[in-house]
C-alpha cells in the first residue's frame, strides 16, 4: 500500500511484517523512532506474538539478541553511533556464533566531538565484525532491505546490518509502498535454525576453540560471506519478481554505460549524485554513479566489472580513516588491482555536513579535468583549520580543539543550513 510516512516508521512496519519473535533495543538518536514504532505495534497487539524487551544498554541489547536468537527466535534490534561501539564485543560474538540477527544501523557519526548527525563512521567501525552490511539509498529500499535481510541472514545463519542514513532517511517523510502480510509471508518462510538451545535436546553453543580449529571457524565465516555474493542478487531478483521493484543486490549503476568518470558511493547521497550526474550529462560530461548496496561482503568482481571501462573513479564517502584517508576507497582500489585508472577519494558529509548538488558538481568538474587532489575533503572550511594550526604553533596551551573551532565559527542558530 502506498503511504506517505517517516523512514523510521516504514522500517518499523517492514520489520513487523517479518514477524520477529523478539525485539530488544536501547534508544539512541537517530534510531529511536524505529524501536518506538515497533514498541507501539507490540503494545497494541498488532505485532503478536512478539516479545519487546527493554534493556539497560546497547551491550545488553545485543547480548539479549544473542540469547534469543540462540533459542531459535527471529530476533531484531537497532542502534547507531556510540551505541554500536558499546555493543561491539557482543556484535563480534553474534557473527562468530553464526546467529542470524537483523539490526538496523541509523548511521551517525562517532564522537568525540559528540555529534548526533549522519555519516558512516559507525557501521564502518564494524565492517570487519563478520556481519553482512547492506546500505539503503532511499526509505523504500531501507524498508525492502529489512525484508530481504531476514531471509539472507537465516539462509546463511549469519547476522545482517541494514544501514540507513540517520535523519536524512530515518526522519524523512516520503512515499513508500508497504507490502501485504501475505506477500511477505510467501517471500520469507518461518525461521529454521541450524542450531537451537533447547532444554529437551541440550547442546552447548559458544565453545572455546584453540589454535587447532580457530582459523577454520573464521575461514568458514568468510566462505559464508563469499557465498552471499551469489545469494544477495538472487534474493533481490526473487524480491523483484514478487514485489515488482528493484531493491538491494550487490551494486547498481546509473548512467554508467559509456561513462569516462564514475562516482562510487553508499547510501542516500546516491540520490543527490544522480541529480548531479543528470546535470553534468546535459552539459556533455560522460559521467555515471555506481551505488554499492552490499558493503560486506564486498563485491570485488561486480565493482571491477562496473568500473573497468571508465577512465577515472571518484569514491565519495561519508567515512574517514584518520592517518590513511578513505575507507570505502581502499576496498574499491582492491577491486581495481592491476587496472590503470585515475582514482580519487572524496571525504564528504562527516558529522552531518550537508552534501549539496552545487558542491558535488564543482568537485566532479575538477575530477573530470583531473584537477582534484587524490584525497579531497568536500567543503572543508580551511579558514578555521588554519586558524587552529596557527594557534597551536604560537602557544603550547592552545586549549581544546572543538571549543576553539566553535568560537571561530560563531553562533550557528543564525545560519539556515
Amino acid at each position: 500500500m502506498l503511504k506517505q510516512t517517516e523512514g523510521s516508521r516504514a522500517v518499523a512496519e517492514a520489520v513487523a511484517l517479518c514477524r520477529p519473535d523478539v525485539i530488544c533495543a536501547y534508544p539512541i538518536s537517530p534510531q529511536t523512532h524505529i524501536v518506538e514504532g515497533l514498541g507501539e505495534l507490540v503494545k497494541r497487539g498488532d505485532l503478536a506474538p512478539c516479545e519487546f524487551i527493554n534493556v539497560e544498554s546497547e551491550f545488553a541489547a545485543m547480548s539479549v539478541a544473542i540469547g534469543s536468537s540462540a533459542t531459535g527466535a527471529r530476533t531484531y534490534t537497532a542502534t547507531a553511533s556510540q551505541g554500536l561501539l558499546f555493543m561491539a564485543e557482543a556484535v563480534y560474538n553474534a557473527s562468530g556464533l553464526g546467529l542470524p540477527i537483523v539490526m538496523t544501523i541509523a548511521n551517525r557519526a562517532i564522537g568525540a566531538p559528540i555529534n548526533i548527525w549522519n555519516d558512516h563512521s559507525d557501521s564502518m567501525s564494524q565492517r570487519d565484525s563478520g556481519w553482512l552490511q547492506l546500505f539503503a539509498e532511499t526509505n523504500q529500499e531501507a524498508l525492502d532491505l529489512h525484508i530481504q535481510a531476514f531471509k539472507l541472514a537465516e539462509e546463511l545463519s549469519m547476522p545482517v546490518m541494514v544501514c540507513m542514513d540517520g535523519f536524512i532517511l530515518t526522519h524523512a517523510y516520503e512515499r513508500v509502498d508497504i507490502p501485504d502480510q501475505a506477500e511477505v509471508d510467501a517471500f520469507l518462510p518461518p525461521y529454521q535454525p541450524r542450531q537451537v538451545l533447547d532444554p529437551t535436546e541440550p547442546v552447548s553453543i559458544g565453545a572455546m576453540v584453540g589454535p587447532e580449529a580457530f582459523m577454520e571457524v573464521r575461514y568458514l565465516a568468510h566462505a559464508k560471506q563469499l557465498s552471499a555474493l551469489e545469494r544477495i542478487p538472487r534474493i533481490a531478483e526473487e524480491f523483484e519478481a514478487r514485489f515488482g521493484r528493484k531493491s538491494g543486490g550487490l551494486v547498481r549503476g546509473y548512467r554508467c554505460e559509456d561513462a569516462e568518470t564514475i562516482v562510487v558511493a553508499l547510501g542516500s547521497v546516491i540520490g543527490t549524485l544522480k541529480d548531479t550526474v543528470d546535470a553534468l550529462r546535459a552539459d556533455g560530461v560522460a559521467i555515471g554513479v555506481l551505488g554499492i548496496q552490499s558493503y560486506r561482503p564486498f563485491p570485488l568482481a561486480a565493482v571491477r566489472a562496473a568500473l573497468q571501462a571508465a577512465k577515472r573513479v571518484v569514491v565519495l564517502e561519508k567515512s574517514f580513516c584518520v592517518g590513511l584517508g578513505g575507507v570505502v576507497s581502499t576496498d574499491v582500489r582492491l577491486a581495481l588491482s592491476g587496472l590503470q585508472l585515475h582514482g580519487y577519494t572524496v571525504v564528504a558529509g562527516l558529522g552531518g555536513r550537508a552534501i549539496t548538488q552545487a558542491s558535488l558538481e564543482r568537485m566532479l568538474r575538477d575530477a573530470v579535468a583531473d584537477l582534484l587532489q587524490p584525497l579531497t575533503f568536500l567543503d572543508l572550511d580551511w579558514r578555521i583549520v588554519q586558524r587552529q594550526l596557527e594557534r597551536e604553533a604560537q602557544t603550547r596551551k592552545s586549549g581544546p580543539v572543538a571549543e576553539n573551532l566553535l568560537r571561530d565559527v560563531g553562533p550557528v542558530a543564525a545560519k539556515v543550513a
Partner: protein
Amino acid sequence: MLQIRFHGRGGQGVVTAAELLAIAAFEQGRHAQAFPSFGSERTGAPVVAFCRIDDREIRLREPILAPDVLIIQDPTLLHQVDVFQGLQPDGYVLINSKRSFDDLGVGEIAKRFRRERLLTVAATEIALKHLGRPLPNAVLLGGFAALTGLVTLDAVAHAIRAKFSGKVADGNVAAAAEAHEVVRHAMLEVADAQAN
C-alpha cells in the same frame, strides 16, 4: 520542483508542519519529501524544516537553500535568523503575525519580492481560538493553501486527520479553514489595492 522552508521554534510543531504538507501533497497524487534540519531539538530554539513537492521521484537530499515558499511560524525569528536567505525572486512568504511586514521591520526586504505573494496571518490567535493552544503549524498550512494554491484546503484537512484524531484534529481543521479564509480575503484586498 517546489521547495518550501519552514522556520519556527522548538515546540511549535515546525517539523510536523512540513510532514503535514508532504501528506497533503501525497493526497493529491504528488511526490513529496519532508525532513527536519536535524538539530538537537530544544523548546524555544530556532528550528528549520523542509518540504519538496514534485511530479516525479525526489532524489535530492540537500537542505533547501533556494526556497519557493517560506513559512515563518514565529516572527521573533525575523531578526535572529536570516530567514529570507535564498528565497526565489517570485517566492511566497507567509508569516504568523497580526502585524504587517513594515511593522515587523522587514518592509525593506519585502520590496525585493512580489507584494501579492507576501502575507501575514495571525495564526497563533486562530489556533488559540480553535485549539486553546498556541500551535500555529497546521493553521498556517490553511493559509499556505490559499496563498499559493499549491495544495487544496481539503488535502490539508486530510493530512491533519491522517496525523491527529478527535478534538485536536477537528480544532486544527477548523483553524486551518479560518486561516484559509483570512488569507483569501487579504489577497483580494492586495489585488484591489494593486488594481487601483
